[in-house]
């Protein structure tokens, strides 16, 4: 169905449906108006009937209680009790209890002739004990006692005038004795009126007391349409208002029922009107309008199309199947420089192409012509003036109404600018990639390029290769001496050498500051690599002029090949690195092959590293203690804690065996921390055994100095009179001590730590170091101490150091006191404290404790071994 047909049909159907709805609404409204008064009367009459029935029901229920109360008030026992004869009290109580067997009874009380409560019983929910009710009950009791009314039915009063969940009634009966009122019986009954009365019904009548706090009662006046119905035999009335909402709801239901019936009944006739009317009236109108609109639409489309084609920026032309031009738009001339007259009848490629160009594009175009399909191609054409132009061509067949090809439409768009941008973009991308993969300074491939090359080899487990690792010697000195420009110059020269001496298939790269790699071409051997390295070493060692000066560097080479059985392709870098370090260790400027021996050493170092890390984890390091003595008095002044590795299999391992690895693995700080904590604990244990250690010294690294827990850990031990000394290497103070670390050290000194400058004289022997640290003690290195027995120069040197110490207010300890001569000479030189094998080797805690307990140390003034003084006393005692 066309849009027009839909429109006509919609209007017609809408009109019919509107009439249908108006009819329904009118009928519904009429039913509503007529039904409301009738329904209201019916509702009212129904309510009256209901109230009549319910009033009787409620009255009967109340009657039952009234009769019971009347009977009770006339009982002799109740009367006798009321006039004061206590003998009847229990009988009276029993009678009242019988009343309470009815759950509706909530309270009962007997009042004396004075209105005094003689007897009361009540449920918790009753009026007894509720002040507002009691005063009201008392009032009416007093009234009854003051008038001797003849016998009659009990009075019935409400406790409240309005309906609540449970309504309370007071049944009040005077107790008459000898015909006179001598007391009053009040019984409270309560029941849920909802069981008797319809919703919205209220009860009204003589009220004994009203509950406070009730919601306001609705307007129950007769003017408001309320209906009153007396409760038979009582002064009470039921009041109810007809439920107008219900009436309205009934009216609505009636209207809806009528409407539903009408909807069904009228639906068929109206549907018939729609169907017939649509055919007779709508269809002819629709056909006529459709024709007119089609004509108008075609005319408009043609006009719009012509305007578009003429105004189109791109060239549009039509050709026959042989590509002969049949028609062009004005843009064709702007694009090609040929007029329509010049172009008509000519073949498109003949006019615009050089022979041999656009071979692929023309082939695609031919296929499209042959298959009457659509294709997009790009061609390099030449304008009439000979200038080239890149053109995007879209060829598509034009079909008639019978889907036969009339001709072909071709749209030509100038994409020359796009082509230029595209070429520039490709060039820039290539340059960016080149830069990301090459070192900007030397032009050699960089680490990333190298990784890109070697990673696939490793991943693919390709053929074995040989790798050379090169590190320049003394390159730092060039930088320091001549500046970075000189360094850059050196690097460029080295790179040129590598480009010169490497074959085309070799892959040289700069992977660090002065680090180079050469991945040798496939199938090249270690020997080929060694020859290349020798050539490069030779070339690199030549003088390099720079701004009138000569720079000299060397190179160390490490060669590894996966052609040997013990090197995997993935381990080439590590192996070459190990070989390079071997060259460095062996004095630089060397070429080292990664041999089985070197491989074994690497494996050993790796094993030691694993063991050391485990040893740190398991805290296998223990402090051994070497005592220090006063050179004059011979008293023990302290101990130095020295690390020993207690290996589970190899036993005690000396420091020289593990320290290099510890330092290389950067585990010094961890080890020092263990020794520090264990050493303090040892002193604490000695203290608990009655052995006082005046001072304990620890070797500390720069990292430990920065450890804020150093002081806190010490405070966690009980060390009442033990001073803690921190020994810092002189070289560390000179080379690595920053202002921040110095500040930390001084803070530790303020917390009570003592600072000692260790190994003084073994390195710089710098006064600057002394002034910088201002230590409490200088420890003279044993290198200076040991020669004093033979060398007077050494003695003078020691004396000078002692003098410097005195000048600065610093005490001096001499290490390496190995014989009695040492002791005497050093004492003579003025050293305050002595430490060395003469007194004791480093010993474990138990031995230390034993020797201190037994005073088992040589005396400084009386020791006479009577043997060769150069023999190690420890060996002697052993």
């Amino acid at each position, binding site marked *: 169905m066309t849009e027009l047909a839909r429109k006509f049909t919609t209007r017609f159907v809408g009109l019919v449906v509107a009439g249908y709805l108006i009819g329904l609404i009118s009928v519904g409204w009429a039913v509503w108006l007529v039904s409301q008064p009738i329904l209201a009367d019916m509702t009212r009459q129904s309510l009256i009937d209901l109230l009549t029935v319910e009033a009787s029901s409620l009255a009967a229920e109340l009657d039952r209680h009234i009769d019971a109360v009347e009977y009770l008030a006339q009982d002799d026992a109740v009367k006798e009790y009321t006039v*004061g*004869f206590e*003998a009847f009290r229990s009988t009276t109580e029993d009678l009242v209890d019988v009343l309470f067997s009815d759950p509706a009874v909530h309270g009962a009380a007997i009042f*004396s*002739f004075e209105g005094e409560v003689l007897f009361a019983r009540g449920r918790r929910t009753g009026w007894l004990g509720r002040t507002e009710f009691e005063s009201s009950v008392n009032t009416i009791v007093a009234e009854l006692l003051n008038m001797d009314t003849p016998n009659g039915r009990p009075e019935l009063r409400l406790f409240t005038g309005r309906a609540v969940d449970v309504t309370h009634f007071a049944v009040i009966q005077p107790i008459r*004795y*000898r015909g006179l009122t*001598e007391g009053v019986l009040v019984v409270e009954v309560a029941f849920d009126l909802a069981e008797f009365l319809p919703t919205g019904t209220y009860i009204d009548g003589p009220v004994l007391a009203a509950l406070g706090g009730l919601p306001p009662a609705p307007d129950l006046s007769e003017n408001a349409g309320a209906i009153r119905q007396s409760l038979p035999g009582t002064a009470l009335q039921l009041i109810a208002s007809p439920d107008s909402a219900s009436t309205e709801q009934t009216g609505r239901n009636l209207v809806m029922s009528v409407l539903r019936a009408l909807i069904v009944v009228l639906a068929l006739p109206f549907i018939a009107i729609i169907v017939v009317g649509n055919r007779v009236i709508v269809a002819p109108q629709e056909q006529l309008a459709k024709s007119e609109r089609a004509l108008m639409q075609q005319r408009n489309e043609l006009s719009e199309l012509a305007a578009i084609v003429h105004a189109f920026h791109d060239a549009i032309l039509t050709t026959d199947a042989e590509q002969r031009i049949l028609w062009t738009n004005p843009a064709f001339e702007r694009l090609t420089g040929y007029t329509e007259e010049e172009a008509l009848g000519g073949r498109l490629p003949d006019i615009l192409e050089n022979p041999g160009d656009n071979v692929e594009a023309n082939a695609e175009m031919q296929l499209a012509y042959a298959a009457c399909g659509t294709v997009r191609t790009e061609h390099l054409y030449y304008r009439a003036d000979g200038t080239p132009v890149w053109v995007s061509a879209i060829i598509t067949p034009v079909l008639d109404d019978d889907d036969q090809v009339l001709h072909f439409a071709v749209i030509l768009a100038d994409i020359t600018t796009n082509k230029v941008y595209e070429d520039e973009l490709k060039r820039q991308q290539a340059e960016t990639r080149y830069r990301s993969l090459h070192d900007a300074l030397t032009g050699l491939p960089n680490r990333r390029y190298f990784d890109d090359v070697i990673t696939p080899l490793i991943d693919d487990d390709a053929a074995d290769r040989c790798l050379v690792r090169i590190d320049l010697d003394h390159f730092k000195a060039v930088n320091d001496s001549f500046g970075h420009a000189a360094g850059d110059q050196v690097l460029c020269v080295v790179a040129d050498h590598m480009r010169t001496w490497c074959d085309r298939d070799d892959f040289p790269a700069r992977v660090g500051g002065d680090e180079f790699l050469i991945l040798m071409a496939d199938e090249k051997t270690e020997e080929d690599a060694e020859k290349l390295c020798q050539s490069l070493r030779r070339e690199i060692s030549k003088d390099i002029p720079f701004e009138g000066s000569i720079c000299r560097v060397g190179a160390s080479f490490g060669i590894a090949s996966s052609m040997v059985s013990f090197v995997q392709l993935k381990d080439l870098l590590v192996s070459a690195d190990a070989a390079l370090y071997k060259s460095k260790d062996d004095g630089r400027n060397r070429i080292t092959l990664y041999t089985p021996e070197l491989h074994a050493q690497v494996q050993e170092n790796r094993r030691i590293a694993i063991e050391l890390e485990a040893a740190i984890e398991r805290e296998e390091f223990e402090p051994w203690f070497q005592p220090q003595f006063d050179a004059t008095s011979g008293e023990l002044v302290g101990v130095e804690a020295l690390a020993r590795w207690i290996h589970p299999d190899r036993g005690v391992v000396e420091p020289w065996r593990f320290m290099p690895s510890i330092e290389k693995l950067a585990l010094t700080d961890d080890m020092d921390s263990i020794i520090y904590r264990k050493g303090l604990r040892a002193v604490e244990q000695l203290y608990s055994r009655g052995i006082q250690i005046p001072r304990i010294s620890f070797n500390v690294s720069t990292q430990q100095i920065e450890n804020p827990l150093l002081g806190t850990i010490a405070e966690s031990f009980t060390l009442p009179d033990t001073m803690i000394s921190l020994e810092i290497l002189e070289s560390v103070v000179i080379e690595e001590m920053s202002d921040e670390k110095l500040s930390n050290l001084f803070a530790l000194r303020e917390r009570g730590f003592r600072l000692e400058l260790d190994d003084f004289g073994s390195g710089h022997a710098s006064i600057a170091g002394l002034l910088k640290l201002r230590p409490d003690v200088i420890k003279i290195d044993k290198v200076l101490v040991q020669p004093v027995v033979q060398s007077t120069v050494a003695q003078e040197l020691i004396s000078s150091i002692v003098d410097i110490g005195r000048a600065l207010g610093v005490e001096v300890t001499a290490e390496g006191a190995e014989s009695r001569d040492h002791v005497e000479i050093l004492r003579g030189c003025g050293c305050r404290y002595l430490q060395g094998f003469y007194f004791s080797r480093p010993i474990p805690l138990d031995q230390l404790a034993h020797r201190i307990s037994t005073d088992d140390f040589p005396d400084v003034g009386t020791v006479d071994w009577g043997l060769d003084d150069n023999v190690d006393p420890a060996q002697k005692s052993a």
Partner: protein
Amino acid sequence: MRVLFALILAVVVVNSASVWAQDRGALNVYIDADFSTNWESAQSIEQGLRAAFQTMGGQAAGYQLNIVPLDHRTNARRSINNLRQFDADPDGIAVVGGMHSPVYINHLDEILDREVPLLLAWSAAGVLTRQRMGGENWIFRLSVDDFQVGPFLAREMSLHRCQRIGLVVLDNAWGRGNLASVSANLRDLSLPHVYETTIATEIGPARAGHVAAELSTLNVDCLGLVGNSHNSAALMMAVDELGLDLEIFSHWGLLSGGFAELVPHEVRTRLGLRIVQTCGLNDGRHDAATLRQALSSAAQLGWSYESLSDVPAPAGFVHGFDLGLILMAALDQATQTVDWSEDPDLRRYLLREALEALDQPIRGILRHYHRPFGEVSDATLFNHEALSGEDLCFAQLDERGRLVDLAAFSPLNEAALGR
């Protein structure tokens, strides 16, 4: 001579009393009785009392004697309230009680604790004057107590050769006490009763009919009745309705008020009703001169009775009068003691002392009283009783409902007596 003496005495007393009255103020004598339902008895007591006071110009020992009648309506609570009211009155000197015993039995302890001089004009319950041995006894009676009625009724029924005796008593302490007494005396006479029951203060026709039916079933020929006006009347009407052939021997409680109106004379006659009474009430048994004086005094006060029978409740009048004379004599004696003062408690105490030891004889209607009361002890249990069993007789009601001597019985009853 006697008249002259009386006149001289009256002038002297009146004169001196008028002088003293001005000096000594007033004393209040309370009457606690049922002025509502048994108004006849209460009113008669009041009239007798007032008549007694009137003989002395309404004064005694220089005090104006005021009478304060209070209605207890047979309600023990009202009665004790009345006594409390008296106790609070500084001029209150004594209380004269009505015909109902239970109201006092119920609050006996409080009456004694409050030290209320209670003079019983008609209450019959024996326990009232024989309570709380060892303590002070404040209750005096001028009326034959029930303790005497039991033996009297048993003896009389025996003399009348009753064979099948039934006993119906009021369901209270008084009634049950009499039941026990009559039963015991009948057993002593080897004449056990065949039926006994209690009835409530107010019974209806149904209960009365039920009792009558039982009497009929058991062929009772003599009925001992201890009740009040209403329930006795109800029972007699029921018995008569069934046509039972029996005679009724009744306590005087039946005369509490209105009985004659409730039970027609024919019924009374048919059932041979005889009522225990103090003999002094019967014609020829009382002091005629004193009675005349009493009736004269009553006339002065506005109550004109030709004879004692005209008084609605003669027993009440006679007892009230005699009690009034005794009270005035006791006051005279008490006020002459050196301790007499304005303290109401002391006055009441001295009055009680005087009542127990009256020096002067008193000439009353019923008898001449020589020391009518004395101190009560184990040996003198009845010393607060002005009368004794010897003072009991049977009386009957004539057509007008007046008490008359048994000798005036109808021929029917004469025949019964001769049986």
